[in-house]
């Protein structure tokens, strides 16, 4: 494989709850490279969501480090290129990481267009016209341009999730994090969302996808991570993980889901 640029380097990441009695993450070490499509699989409660949410600091890690674009984002301060100590701007960091949730989390009091333009306007300072033009172009890409004026409640689950994906894309992130984006959907709507994700992967977007869609993980992912009990149990290409699983927990898991 050609040399790849590191985007996120995770070292011994831990997240404990309740004074350390719950170890949601108990030391995860991995590296995400530009252009990676990483599928994260594992049984419920294994810490997949916590891992994803730690990456953009929706959860504050208990220990370990996450180096993103050369900066350890688990620290409040870092030393910049000129040797100056500056405060970490979490909001700026999060702009660079788009996130898509299981339950869409569209803003119900705003139209689809409102949902799409809020962050570009308020965070990036884009003009209304520019933000709307861009939003409509993105909506067009997922076939929802004609629903721009609708409210989230008027859309189907699959449509909502497609909007949620392009809402995140409107901020032009460097990496997209997906937390079970199809788990809350009726079966007939899963395909339309996976198609959008697949297209995104083909365009070269770096993606980390927590998913139960093993077909998607195998077909679109270039790497698969298997987690259990807050630990990274096995990591490899889809062929390695699905066809030649080593860890007994993984073998057991695959026997249940495949």
């Amino acid at each position, binding site marked *: 494989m050609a040399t790849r640029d590191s985007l996120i380097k995770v070292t011994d990441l831990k997240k404990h709850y309740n004074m350390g009695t719950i170890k949601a993450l108990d030391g995860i070490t991995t590296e995400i490279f530009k252009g990676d499509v990483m599928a994260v699989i594992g049984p419920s409660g294994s810490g997949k969501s916590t891992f994803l949410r730690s990456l953009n600091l*929706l959860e504050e890690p*208990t220990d370990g480090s996450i180096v993103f674009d050369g900066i350890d984002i688990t620290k409040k301060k870092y030393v910049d290129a000129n040797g100056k100590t500056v405060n970490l701007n979490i*909001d700026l960091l*999060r*702009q660079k990481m788009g996130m898509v949730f299981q339950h869409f989390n569209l*803003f119900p009091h705003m139209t689809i267009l409102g949902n799409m333009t*809020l*962050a570009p306007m308020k965070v990036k300072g884009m003009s209304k016209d520019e933000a709307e033009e861009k939003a409509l172009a993105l909506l067009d890409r997922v076939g929802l341009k004609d629903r721009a004026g609708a409210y989230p409640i008027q859309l189907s689950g699959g449509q909502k999730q497609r909007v949620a994906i392009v809402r995140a894309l409107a901020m032009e992130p460097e990496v997209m994090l997906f937390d079970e984006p199809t788990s809350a959907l009726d079966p007939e709507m899963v395909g339309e969302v996976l198609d959008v994700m697949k297209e995104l992967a083909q365009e070269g977007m770096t993606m980390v996808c927590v998913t139960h869609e093993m077909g998607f993980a195998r077909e679109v992912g270039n790497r698969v991570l298997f987690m259990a009990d807050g630990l990274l149990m096995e990591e490899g290409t889809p062929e390695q993980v699905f066809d030649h699983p080593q860890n007994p927990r993984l073998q057991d898991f695959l026997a249940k889901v495949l």
Partner: protein
Amino acid sequence: MDSFIKLSNFPKLLPYAQLFWQGILVTVLLSVFTVVIGFCIALLLALMRLSNFCPLRFLGLDKNGHRKQRGFLAAVGRFNPLNFLATAYVEILRSTPVIVQVFIIYYGVFSLIKLPSVILFGFIRFDRFFPGVVALGLNSGAYLCEIIRAGIQSIDGGQTEAARSLGLSQAQNMRYVILPQAVKNILPAIANEFVIIIKESAITYTIGVQDIMSAVNAVKGATFIIIEPLLVATAIYFCLCFPTSKLIAYFERRMSRGDKR
């Protein structure tokens, strides 16, 4: 059998009708101002209680800069003075009688701050009315704070996560995402607080605010009739409060229907 109500007493109240009209106006104005001030105080208190302001956070960090899980310093690091002050305010005001608060504001605070003795609309004495509004506003702020806080907390946490993951700051998230949704939950409660204040404001006649109760008192002083003016006041308060609560309940039902569209 002798009745304690004498119908013949009612016509004797007619010359004082003007006092009652003025009393109604004072009570309503007092309540409106109180709710507005109360809401502003409450919003501030609620945001303080929900804030993430921990100036001593650095004391609770370990050598790697991560938050300690346990111990005294971890608790010090989590200490939020804004939350502490707001909580103390709310608990103190909810655990003491309104009349004590009204007296402290009027005889205490406003003995230091001299108010001009202007008369508004020809009958509202500003130096009584204003302390009354301040005292009731401070009090209802404490009650509304919990309502606003609950309204904000009732919004699904996924909304904040989505907003923050898009790069919105905590303040932007509040302003553009959370509060517009929370207002819908909060408005009926604020309207109900308005009805409660209409009734509670009767207490301000003790510091000379010329509200409905003060009209009763004036009639009593002049004619030695007490029960009949009290019945008039009862009728007035009921006519102010009952339809208002029914109206609020009606709009509350309509609004919650809109949700299930």
